[in-house]
């Protein structure tokens, strides 16, 4: 298998970064369970998906996560954080 190009849409960028995904979009402030936006908001969902797919053709740095703001999403949420462990 040669491999399949992928792009991740993540609402937990810090958590996702641990897995080193090759291409990722973080729609800033979207809550967990809203990867593409809010229910029924098709234009917003399309824009998020277009932006994600364009990362396939953009000259991105492997492993980087691109953050894009979508003001039309409305109320913003803090993403989950990676739990720090102390020795």
């Amino acid at each position, binding site marked *: *298998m*040669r*491999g*399949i*190009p*992928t*792009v*991740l*849409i*993540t*609402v*937990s960028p810090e958590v*996702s970064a641990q897995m*080193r*995904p*090759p*291409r990722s979009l973080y729609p800033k402030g979207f*809550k*967990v*369970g*809203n*990867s*593409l*936006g*809010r*229910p*029924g908001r*098709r234009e917003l*969902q*399309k824009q998020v*998906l*277009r932006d*994600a*797919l*364009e990362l*396939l*053709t953009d000259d991105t740095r*492997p*492993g980087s996560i691109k953050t894009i703001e979508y003001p039309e999403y409305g109320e913003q949420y803090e993403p989950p954080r990676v739990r720090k462990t102390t020795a």
Partner: protein
Amino acid sequence: MTISRKCVPFTPFERELAKSAIAIVTAGGVHLKDQEPFNIADELGDLTYREILADVDSSQLMVTHHHYDHTDADRDINVVFPIDVLRDLEAEGFIGGVAKKHIGYMGYTMQLKAMYEGTAREIANDIDKTSRADAVVLTGG
């Protein structure tokens, strides 16, 4: 084969989006209503996955996942599994098409090694051999 912890598994995309078929692989616990639900009673997580075909009626999809609030996905599955959104982008000519097969699994497990070395590879092979996808969109919850 052991994958380097420092290596990013980057596969180049050498096609045009407008000529490419796109598949969805979601960890959001999405499956058809008439498929077996994921086993949320198993505290170790469920390592199985469900195949979803291109012609699926999105109203026949549901979520079984107890590690995120899927109230919004229950109303509109496209917020985690954008199958109708892909169809819209195909109609606009932005992508070439919707791949023949898509995958839902439950992205919670305490069995990480089995997920990496078993389920993830099975999903990748399944998509590679049977979906005719040129690229994959990954979503979580």
